[in-house]
């Protein structure tokens, strides 16, 4: 740490401690040992408590603390403090890096379906075979919540049986599976050996041992006995699909450097970028030790990104980050939205996937996710958006009107944050705070009625817009302290109805889409909101890096990961915030390349 930072740190520690008039004035009034607002006490602030320090950093960076309306120090003063705090955390992490730890991951539903597709060319409906995956930290691949249960085991068992039987009868799968045919009974074992060698190699992702092949052959013989050659292969395949080497992404213990093995790193990388096992080239690179050379490692990352398979980043990562699964849960009221059909929701989802994929493929600045002047529409979707001149069911890249720029102009986001009969600025605002800023609002206090539901839309002769109903009740002081932060970004989107179509009036009242961000920035409609996002770009980028790290490592990020996340963001900034710079930052992080078991932490 340089001298200047040290001075700043000393000042800041003093400033945040309860004894000084500065923090007494700005922080400890609410964050006292007694009041602990937001579950945080800054009395006796300890700069070595990473969890508390990172909380403070986030809120100061966001400009959310001290809260809007309260007296706050000058921005320069706040900046000095937050920079000193970050620098303190980052230098401590540089001296003692903590890559974190997670147990091995198992194939989730999506991984399983993809593995079967890659192995046998079969597309199976995994939702009918395996129980749903527990979501944690917003993703379905988080290792520590992937527990076992009898229902999961019987699911695997049934799936293995059904798939193996299908594989020896389905023509496409047979072509892939039966790489030889025994010309005579004496050749059967040799042919079976050849087939099962290939299957175990692929199914066990390059970790198959001679003993594994021996085991598979034993099942072949058992199945062959008294039945056909194909039946032998079928039973061997069934056993392979039950092996922990197939179902689990096992990683051998780390050596003293804590680095995962080359094969494990290759697997982590391909599951991150492709949602699938490594291909031959990546497996070869791992076997040759090339992944240990930064240049060759980067080459592989870029190769994977350029490959069509990287669309898993849009289909798996982006859809979960953006919570698009919630689209299925909104069923617009047909009396209010007679032209809407359930097909539209599918098109909206596809639009967002294609759009995100374009940012990956063209390696764009990730802020284009919010500002790009194009999107992907087909006729039905364009019609839904009220745009003429696009014909046919094929999606194509189109220039979009200003209000449709970026994710916040896309139906998928707008509808998944609505209710069946109306918009919810609360849900939309909450979505922006949680999904884009990474600063979730606190839970509602008890005994407070849901804010936007306390007013009727029609009272006597008069009708009220959603905005008016919300504002009426934001006058309740118990609600206003949080909702003046949550609602305004949603208010700025009020021109989009519950199905994401454009409107100029709501319930016969002219739409007023002027919102005021918690920091006082006025946001007029979608463009005002986009400007606010750009103004808080550091928050948005930090959050994107955090989300990507969570998905890539299969564990929730902790305070000890924040220095790595800041490093990714800083690295990306030097490269124009390109998408690949985030992916590379994640792939090069200690958390991605290492694993530190809890026991050695104590040592």
């Amino acid at each position, binding site marked *: 740490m340089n001298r200047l930072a040290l001075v700043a740190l000393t000042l800041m520690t003093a400033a945040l401690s309860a004894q000084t008039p500065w923090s007494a004035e700005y922080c400890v009034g609410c964050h006292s040992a007694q009041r602990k607002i937001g*579950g945080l006490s800054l009395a006796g602030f300890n700069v070595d408590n990473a969890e508390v320090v990172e909380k403070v950093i986030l809120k100061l960076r966001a400009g959310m603390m001290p809260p809007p309306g309260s007296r706050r120090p000058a921005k320069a003063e706040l900046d000095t403090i937050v920079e000193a705090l970050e620098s303190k955390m980052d230098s401590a992490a540089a001296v003692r890096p903590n890559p974190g730890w997670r147990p091995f991951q198992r194939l989730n539903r999506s991984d399983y379906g993809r593995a079967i597709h890659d192995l046998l060319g079969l597309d199976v409906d995994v939702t009918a075979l395996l129980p749903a995956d527990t979501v944690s930290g917003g993703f379905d691949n988080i290792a520590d919540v992937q527990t076992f*249960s009898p229902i999961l085991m019987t*699911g695997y068992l049934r799936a293995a049986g059904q798939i193996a039987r299908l594989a020896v009868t389905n023509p496409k799968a047979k072509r892939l599976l039966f790489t030889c045919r025994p010309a005579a009974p004496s050749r059967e074992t040799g042919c079976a050996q050849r087939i099962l060698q290939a299957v175990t190699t692929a199914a066990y992702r390059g970790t198959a041992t001679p003993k594994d092949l021996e085991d598979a052959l034993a099942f072949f013989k058992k199945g062959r006995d008294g039945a056909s050659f194909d039946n032998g292969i079928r039973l061997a395949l069934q056993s392979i699909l039950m092996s922990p080497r197939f179902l689990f992404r*096992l990683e051998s213990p780390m050596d003293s450097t804590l680095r995962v093995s080359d094969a494990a790193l290759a697997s982590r990388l391909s599951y991150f970028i492709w949602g699938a096992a490594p291909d031959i080239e990546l497996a070869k690179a791992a076997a040759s030790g090339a992944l240990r050379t930064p240049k060759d490692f980067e080459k592989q990352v870029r190769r994977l990104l350029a490959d069509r398979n990287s669309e898993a980043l849009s289909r798996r990562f982006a859809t979960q980050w953006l919570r698009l699964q919630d689209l*299925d849960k909104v069923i617009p009221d047909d009396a209010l939205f007679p032209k809407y059909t359930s097909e539209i929701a599918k098109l909206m989802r596809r639009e967002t996937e294609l759009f995100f994929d374009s940012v990956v493929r063209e390696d764009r600045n990730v802020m284009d996710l919010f500002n790009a002047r194009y999107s992907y529409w087909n006729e039905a979707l364009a019609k839904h958006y009220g745009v003429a001149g696009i014909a046919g069911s094929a999606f194509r890249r189109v220039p979009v009107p200003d209000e449709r720029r970026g994710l916040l102009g896309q139906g998928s986001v707008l509808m998944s944050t609505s209710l069946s009969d109306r918009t919810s600025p609360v849900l939309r605002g909450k979505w922006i705070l949680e999904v884009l800023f990474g600063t979730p609002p606190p839970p509602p206090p008890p005994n407070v009625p849901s804010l936007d539901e306390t007013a009727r839309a029609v009272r006597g002769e008069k009708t009220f817009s959603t905005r008016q109903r919300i504002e009426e009740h934001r006058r309740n002081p118990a609600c206003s302290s949080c909702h003046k932060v949550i609602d305004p970004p949603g208010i700025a989107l009020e021109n989009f109805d519950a199905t994401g179509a454009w409107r100029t009036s709501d319930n016969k009242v002219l739409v007023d889409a002027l919102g005021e961000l918690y920091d006082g920035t006025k946001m007029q409609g979608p463009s005002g909101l986009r400007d606010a996002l750009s103004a808080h770009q550091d928050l948005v980028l930090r959050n994107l890096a955090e989300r990507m790290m969570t998905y890539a490592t299969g564990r929730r990020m902790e305070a000890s990961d924040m220095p790595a996340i800041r490093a990714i963001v800083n690295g990306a900034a030097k490269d124009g915030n390109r998408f690949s710079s985030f992916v590379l930052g994640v792939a090069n992080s200690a958390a991605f390349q290492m694993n530190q078991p809890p026991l050695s932490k104590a040592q």
Partner: protein
Amino acid sequence: MFLTQKHLDRRTLLRGLGAAVALPVLDAMTPALRAQEQAKNVRLVCIEMVHGAAGSSAIGIKKNLWSPAKIGRGFDLAPTSLRPLAPFQDYLTIVSNTDVPSAEAFEIREVGGDHIRSSAVFLTQAHPKRTQGADVEAGISIDQVYAQRMGQATAIPSMQLCIEDVDQGGGCGFGYSCIYSDTISWASATQPLPMIRDPRIVFDELFGVFGSGSNAAERQARRAEERSILDWLMTSVKRLQKDLGAQDRTRLDDYLANIREVERRIQKAENVTAPREIPAPPRGIPVSFSEHVKMMFDLQALAFASDITRVFSFKLGRDNSNRTYPESGFKGAFHPTSHHGGKEDRILDFAKLNTFHISLIPYFLEKLKNTPDGDGNLLDNTLLLYGSPMGDSNEHNHKKVPFLLAGRAGGALKGGVHIQAPNETPLANVMLSVLHGIGMPELNEFGDSEGVLDLNG
């Protein structure tokens, strides 16, 4: 003993599931000789609905929107949300005025987490630990207490079903693991059990214990194959563990424990004769709420009739859900409607949703009642528990929660009674009394219980 009385039309059930009542199938599935053996084999069904009830609000209590005005016998269900159950009044034990204190916040940082925490409390009556990691903790649930004691007699000790999908983005948070909202069944304080939403999986689980296949010989052969694979896994996993770190070795031990349980199930199934005809499976997840619920009830009735399992837990909703139920005659979304602002007209709207949810129960009770079991019918030998861990949803409180029992529980319940618990009685007292009634009289406590309650008033 597992003899079918008559030939089953496989398509009857395929069509019947979720649509028409497949009673002939149930009759046929009931073995002729099993009646006496099973006379006291009480079946347990625990059903949770989220978001409390209109009848738990101050106005709702006054207007008897959940429990009837009269205490004791001869009550009138007409003003209540329970009125669809009127034909089964003799089988009802309504317990009102209980609280679920373990669902409340115990510390400041838990305040506001009611929706995320509640479901984990319903059947455990234990306070969930606030954590997002693998170190989740609540308590053993009532269905599992019973299943662990009685469930070993059947191929499947218990099953867990649900209606709503678990992958709700942002549906859980505030420092709580999603699993607290995903399931109501806990095998121990640290082992939540996943719930199954897809009727196809429920079907495959139930009949899959006999092995898949179109006839008995094929099923037998496939079962033998599966057992040989499971045997092989036991040894090969041990070999594999040598190459792993300590934590992952422990994790694989857990995997092996589950493999052993699956082996036990297959073994158990070998001791009973599978139904000669296994009905055709359902096709997928119905979009309609009532169709989905009824299909799950069909499967539960079928499982009871064929004694594959005796215990179900069934989660009908998910906290914070914005699902609409147009069939109820009210179009508002579930969660916003539950925040009625204490206003009478909106409380009455919410009551319409409660009534609609209750209206699906008679379908199941009817099936059970029409299925002979022992000297009586399945409903005589079933205990169905229905309720919510939340009371007045507008305030997110857990007081005076909606709750009822149906069925005679093998004679433990007389039925036809409305019991009003003394103020501040924990719901756990009722659950402890239930466990006493269904064969575990030696238990001294359950969850946060403080005593027992006479359920026959």
